[in-house]
């Protein structure tokens, strides 16, 4: 298991991914193979299946402006809002940011039909269902009996009533979670891995050896997935994977973890040796084939996003549509 399995194993990792990888064969991106899809955004991956992420990206039309921005700008712009959302109450503010993020994605991102459908139909459906599942858990004693929404009973089982007020509290939680996810999708759906690593190395001055190690690690994932299959098959052949239930599952995971990690570390050693042999990291700086720039439009995008976010918060707090402190849990009905 320690040796590379010829034929079935994925292509050997090129030590310095950017300059080596040929552009012609359409290698599937790692994203399409192993993404543990989150329920709301399951269709996010396939948009980039046939593109080679290490090559120059195909030109995107001018209106898809999110693809023309620096990945760091797409991350820095929503970051303050993502932090503020954690402490935000009410329905209005998260809803406003979901609409803002959806609008930016629909206009500015090149999305496949499935991704677009998941965003426009799946997200509202997920919010409504999540609002229900969070609302069930709300303690009726903690809802003010005097408010109008508390008297509207949606349904009742015996003595227990599911009121509109409980649903709105659950909905606020669901909207907060979704808003956080949507804001991180701004960068996530429009940035390829190599672009992000390039921006981190060239603009944020992350040591390039760490960035390129991460790129090499991306190529590890499908390889280790294959290795995991082999180890599981070997255990099955010997009959050492018997048993049902969570305890047996944990025991089985530990039993596969040791050989998998051991072979993973051995593989990493060989790759490191190959990279060292090609003088990876011999110099303090590194030449890049693709230059990642921070342009005026990146600054403009970040500043504009911050101004709009501040305006949304200012307007919502003025109108009393939700607070940033836990004691203002009015939902603005």
């Amino acid at each position, binding site marked *: 298991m320690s040796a590379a399995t010829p034929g079935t194993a994925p292509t050997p990792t090129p030590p310095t991914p950017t300059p080596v990888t040929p552009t012609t064969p359409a290698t599937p991106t790692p994203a399409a193979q192993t993404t543990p899809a989150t329920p709301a955004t399951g269709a996010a991956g396939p948009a980039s299946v046939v593109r080679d992420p290490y090559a120059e990206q195909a030109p995107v039309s001018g209106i898809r402006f999110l693809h023309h921005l620096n990945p760091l700008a797409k991350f820095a712009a929503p970051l303050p809002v993502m932090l503020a959302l954690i*402490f935000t109450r009410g329905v209005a503010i998260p809803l406003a940011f979901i609409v803002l993020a959806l609008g930016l994605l629909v206009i500015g991102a090149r999305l496949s039909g499935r991704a677009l459908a998941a965003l426009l139909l799946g997200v509202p459906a997920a919010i409504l269902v999540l609002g229900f599942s*969070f609302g069930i858990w709300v303690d009726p004693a903690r809802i003010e009996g005097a408010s109008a929404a508390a008297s509207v009973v949606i349904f009742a089982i015996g003595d227990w009533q599911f009121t509109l007020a409980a649903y709105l509290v659950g909905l606020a939680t669901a909207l907060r979670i979704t808003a956080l996810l949507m804001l991180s999708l701004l960068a996530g759906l429009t*940035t390829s*891995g190599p672009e992000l690593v390039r921006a981190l190395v060239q603009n944020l001055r992350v040591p390039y050896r760490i960035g390129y190690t991460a790129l090499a690690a991306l190529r590890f994932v499908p390889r280790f997935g294959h290795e995991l299959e082999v180890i599981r098959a070997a255990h099955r052949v010997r009959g050492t994977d018997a048993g049902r239930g969570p305890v047996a599952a944990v025991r089985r995971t530990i039993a596969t973890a040791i050989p998998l990690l051991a072979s993973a570390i051995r593989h*990493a050693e060989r790759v490191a040796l190959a990279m060292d042999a090609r003088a990876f990291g011999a110099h303090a700086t590194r030449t890049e084939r693709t230059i990642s720039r921070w342009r005026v439009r990146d600054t403009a995008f970040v500043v504009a996003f911050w101004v709009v976010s501040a305006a949304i918060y200012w307007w919502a707090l003025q109108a009393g549509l939700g607070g940033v402190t836990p004691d203002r849990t009015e939902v603005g009905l």
Partner: protein
Amino acid sequence: MRLNVPTRLLLTCAAIGAAAGLLLIPAFVLSTTVAPAIPLLYAAFAGVWSVPFVVAIALIRQPGVALLTSLIAGLVNAVLTPQGPSAILTCLMIGAMVEIPLAIGLYRSFRPWIFYVGAGVFAFPYALYSMPFLGVDQFPLWAQIAYPTLSVLSNLAGVWLGLLIARRLDRTGVARGLQRPVRRPKATDAALEPTPAA
């Protein structure tokens, strides 16, 4: 910026992050699909996230390994999941939780109790901080008590699992040459030459 870390150490960290992430996929899927219906499951699965970083630093025993693994794991996650760069921050935060208790001791000791105390100390305030975000502060009292309790317990379980894997991995000898040897200095052998006992 120069980084005086052997390439072998960098790639070993990357391999641990990638392989452990692969093994934990069932746990991640379970926590993202079931947890919205039962918010308490978020707390019950919180400890899973720290397992790769505990494995890395308990196996290699070098300063900064947990943070390095978390940075690389975050970069990998940023590409593989639609969350993008936010995944880097999440991973770095968890890596720091594993790293800080050992850094306080200046990396002289890697005994299990340091990991357990660190996990407990960080898990509790983190649970309290995440409760209002998930709306747990509106839940009945038993749920408000169960949430931080489950969170601390699952973090302790994560450390247990990570240390167990690291110990067995140590026995395979794959990290030999990278590891810092275990030194257990005693007051009585102050005069003797410190001998590395693996």
